[in-house]
């Protein structure tokens, strides 16, 4: 009885605290983002690790052997609640050939802990939708 109650309370605490722990109110693009792109039947996992140095956004897409380096990021602040974001990156495919990545999306939920970045992902000859949320 008591064990079950303790588990329920612990679960409630665990579910409620991570949002506060993940608070970040600096540049909204800074941080780690995870999600997917491509078709629903065959999605590709994404991890974006982005930083803000006061002048530019830099970072890496999918750190590891096939990592892509962010080359440029452009923002459109016309709508304060949904920024337009375009990212150009360069990486390599599984065979080691250079591949260009073009990301055209919107950044939403800017003030909340769970920021959302979604839009169109173009990589080599493939094109699809992507969605990542800030970790």
């Amino acid at each position, binding site marked *: 009885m008591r064990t079950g109650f303790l588990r329920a309370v612990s679960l409630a*605490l665990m579910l409620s605290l991570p949002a506060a722990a993940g608070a970040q*109110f*600096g540049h909204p693009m800074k941080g780690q983002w995870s999600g997917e792109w491509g078709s629903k039947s065959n999605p590709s996992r994404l991890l974006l690790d982005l930083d803000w140095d*006061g002048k530019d956004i830099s970072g890496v897409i999918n750190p590891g052997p096939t990592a892509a380096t962010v080359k440029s990021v452009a923002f459109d*602040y016309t709508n304060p*609640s949904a920024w337009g974001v375009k990212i150009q990156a360069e990486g390599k495919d599984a065979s080691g050939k250079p591949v260009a990545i073009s990301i055209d999306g919107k950044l939403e939920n*800017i003030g*909340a802990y*769970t920021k959302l970045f979604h839009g169109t992902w173009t990589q080599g000859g493939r094109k699809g939708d992507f969605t990542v949320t800030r970790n």
Partner: protein
Amino acid sequence: MEKSLRTALLGATAVAVFSSSVWVLGAQQGAAQEGAAPGAGQGQGRGRGRGAAPSLPTPRLPDGTVNLGRVPGEKGVWGVPYITNMAMQVIGPDGQPVPEIVKLRQDQAAARAGGAGARGGGGGGRGRGGSKSEPWMPWMPWSAAVYDYHSLNESKYDPEGYCLPPGGPRMMATPYQAEILQQPEHKRVIMIFEGATHIWREIYMDGRKFPEGDQLNPTYLGYSVGRWEGDTLVVENKGFNENSWLDYFGHPHTDKMHVTERWTRPNKQTLHYEATVNDPGAYTKPFTMAWDIPWREGAELPEYICQENNRYLNRLEDDLGQPIFGPRPQPGVKPASGTR
């Protein structure tokens, strides 16, 4: 035993889930500050100019150092004012409010006299003017856009509303009482705050240098190193995390922020505070803000717990309709409004 344990755990759960009614109060009082004068030693801030009590001499410690706290045998605390928009406290090199603020205040006063509502920088509540109403602020495009976002949603996501600590100068702009305890024998100054999640600051006065690299662990209040320049306590602060806003209106900052604080006590009843914010991650150049803090003679620090009975977050949803705290819905399933 089980009952008491259950009660304690329920209390802990409430602390974690419920947020601050102060946030709601803050939202309501956002407009209340619109007429607050920049504190530049002009004796116009909240709590100043009341009555005609003569200024009493600045108290000093036995070694002649200015005493920023109580005189032995007396009681008293500092009544920290409510500064909701720090941009309205910006001063120029002469220590006076920048001309744009002076004109804005004149326009607002004229508008009020004419029955119109005030807008623009410093305007509270609905109709906040966003970054364009504060052209004296050295915005970067992103910081202006973030500020506009917070203006549009009326500071819905203010982290202090979630009972998270304020960062940097906001410590001295959160409207609860505070004490300053000087410990020259320990080469430190301690500041304790009733509000802002019941926190304290330690300012190292031993001449140390800032930790470097990963040793400077980013925190809400940063790392504080102080020194005396004559009768002025000068405190350098670095090592802030990015989990806070500069103020209720939502001026953002980054972890690159360096804050220089200057404290003087021109008389017993007044603490004059200046803060220069140098954040090359969010603003194109430094800016300085100032205000006065009145002495509350005879007062003591009461207990205040931000998290207690704080129900605001229980129904707060983000821009996508998801609960800010608590269990998140499954992907693609929007929670039914009012079910939480």
